[in-house]
């Protein structure tokens, strides 16, 4: 039953309705002007409607990911690390309580407003093209990752067969923009930051992908939806076999690599604010900075969603609808990420590269062996 109520079909229906209105109007005028009727017919053809449906579905996911969800996760992070610091966190602007003990939910909106008003400064000797395009690359690739991330069986933009590869690939583009920004800003601090970003990418992409191989082995698919389906089958233990149980080492490797990928605190070397001012972001101001800053959260959420899909059984869960389960699980992962972020000092570049090669890659390979063993025994 639920197979036809998916985001695509709903968007298709909405698109059909809207285009129907347009076509009706055109047909009305077509009584006098012939070609308009033909145009209306073309508008109602399946191909155009498909395109419109994809636009509408994409817009829905974008709105969810980059507005509603983004505000919620930013609020969670800022409130939560406030509490970790024994502070109250943001509290003044909020829709529900106007006093100083409010929720502060709209603080991020206010910050965004402030950033939009700021002047966009381009350094005199910067390479203007590269300098302008780097934040755009980061922002677009971060949001583009959500094209292939299904929020439930029915809520997704595109059901890509090699979706996992697509997500990992699109998330790996950002470090390129980091190098670009660091180089083009024409500043020594940004240069060091950008090159550190490159070093980080080289050493952490590999464990990230190796740790996913176990999942692919067990599920036999690269499609996120298929991976979740594989996890929904009952295992020998009598519960759904979420891959966190057999592949626990892989989860840890994936988490650690994700921290480096997201430039979060233990591994936020490219923008170590104590030593490199703001790293590769030093010269950016206004909404250029804001875009990058916001897409960091988008990417973090993408990472949390990826962990949910790969290891935590995606949207499977009792009673509640799948989308809600997915969001609950990904928020829990996100909270753990925030908690870890604010507990550790920043590590040094050579140390984290060494951790990456000496610890994470062997553990990831061990997890592949475990996955292969399970597959061989036939438990999964």
């Amino acid at each position, binding site marked *: 039953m639920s197979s036809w109520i998916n985001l695509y079909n709903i968007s298709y229906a909405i698109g059909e309705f809207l285009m129907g209105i347009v076509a009706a109007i055109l047909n009305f005028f077509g009584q006098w002007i012939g070609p308009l009727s033909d145009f209306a017919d073309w508008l109602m053809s399946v191909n155009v409607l498909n395109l419109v449906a994809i636009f509408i579905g994409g817009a829905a996911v974008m709105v969810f990911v980059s507005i509603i969800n983004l505000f919620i996760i930013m609020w969670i992070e800022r409130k939560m*690390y406030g509490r*970790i*610091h*024994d*502070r109250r966190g943001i509290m003044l602007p909020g829709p529900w309580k106007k006093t100083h003990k409010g929720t502060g939910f709209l603080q991020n909106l206010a910050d965004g407003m402030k950033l939009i008003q700021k002047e966009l400064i381009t350094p005199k000797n910067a390479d203007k093209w590269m300098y302008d395009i780097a934040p755009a690359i980061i922002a677009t690739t971060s949001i583009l990752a959500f094209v292939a991330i299904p929020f439930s069986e029915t809520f997704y933009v595109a059901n890509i067969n090699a979706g996992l590869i697509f997500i990992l690939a699109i998330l790996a583009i950002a470090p390129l923009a980091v190098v670009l920004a660091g180089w083009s800003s024409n500043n*020594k*601090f940004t240069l*060091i930051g950008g090159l*550190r970003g490159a070093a980080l990418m080289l050493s952490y992409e590999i464990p990230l992908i190796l740790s996913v191989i176990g999942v692919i082995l067990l599920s036999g698919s690269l499609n996120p939806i298929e991976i979740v389906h594989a996890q929904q089958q009952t295992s020998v233990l009598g519960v759904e076999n979420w891959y966190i149980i057999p592949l626990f080492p892989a989860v840890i490797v994936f988490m650690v690599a994700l921290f480096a990928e997201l430039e979060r*605190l*233990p591994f*936020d*070397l490219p923008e*170590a*604010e*104590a*030593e*490199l*001012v703001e790293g590769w972001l030093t010269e950016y101001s206004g909404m250029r900075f804001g875009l990058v800053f916001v897409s960091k959260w988008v990417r973090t959420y993408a990472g949390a969603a990826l962990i949910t899909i790969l290891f935590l059984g995606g949207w499977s869960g009792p009673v509640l609808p799948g989308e809600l389960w997915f969001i609950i699980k990904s928020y829990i992962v996100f909270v753990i990420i925030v908690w870890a972020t*604010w*507990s*550790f*000092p*920043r*590590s*040094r*570049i*050579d*140390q984290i590269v060494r951790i990456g090669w000496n610890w994470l890659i062997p553990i990831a390979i061990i997890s592949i062996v475990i996955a292969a063993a399970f597959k061989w025994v036939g438990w999964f």
Partner: protein
Amino acid sequence: MSDMWINMGPQHPMNHGLWNLKVRVDGEIVVESIPVLGYLHRGVEKLCEKRDYNQIIPLMDRLCYVSSLTWSHAYCISVEEMMGLEVPDRAKYLRVIALELQRVASHLMWLAAFAPDLGMFSAYLYSMREREHFLDMLQWLTGARMNQNYPRIGGVRNDMPAGFPDRCFKELDYFEKKLEQYKQLFDDNKLFRMRTMGVGVLSKEDALDLGVTGPALRGSNCPIDMRTHDPYEVYDELDWEVQVGKEGDVFSRYAVRMGEMRESCRIIRDALKKIPDGPVRVKAPLRPTGQGFRRTEDSRGEALIYVIGQGGESPYRLKIRSPIFAIMRAVPVMLKGTSVADLLAIMGSVDICIGDTDK
């Protein structure tokens, strides 16, 4: 990659204060470094020649706002030596209590600056929270939170309030418990150990040659603490131990400072128990003549004040020896061959205070 010069300062998140560290880096490796001082020169020594002896005490407070009491105290005991003045016992104990409260507050401020250098912003807020308790105690005892103006030539400004020891014991209990818990966050933390161990090693010989003092020297396995080496006030009657680190790296400097906070708590407890009754201030002679020269253990190192009086209202000359100014000379030695990220840890472990460095 070829070498390049980076100016870390005067406005840079690394330098807590207004100074400039020029580093020549080869990739991430520091090849050469030159500390540039003088951005905050206020001519304190000259100002002292225009004020009378009591008006200098608040000025000395402003040498270093983080540990202001130690400086005004150093000035007071130098002038007392010049006058040949004997301070009453109760005043000595009160000074020790105030000094140690100040030392803990100062070390906590150091922790609050050092931890964010390593990226642990959480620790900044924790230690600022703990510092608040000590500032409260200082406020109650001396009347101000930051620039206390508490020691006087010939004693202290006022006696301690009734009920001070009880509340102080309570705060110390709280703090000692917290200090034990900090081990989880720092000592046990593998990433913290990785960042600090074996970094910025300063050998004992180098440290002695370059005039390094204070926790940086004691971290290099050299148990020289002015409180026992050249005892002043009543430190030799109290029950405590000098903290020494073995390795001379950032971690041992960290460990020395953490140990000193613990020892300071012990000193305060002991002093509050042993404090005798009596007056807290004696009359100081006016218009003294002679020379006074005393060194004390500031929370950053050896603070020395040399004062000459020639019978006027104000001293003829006053010379300040700042510990950080001497340590700055050791900075290039410590930094050579480390990476840019370690530079942070090393400079953080030195606990720079530009206020008394530039005077």
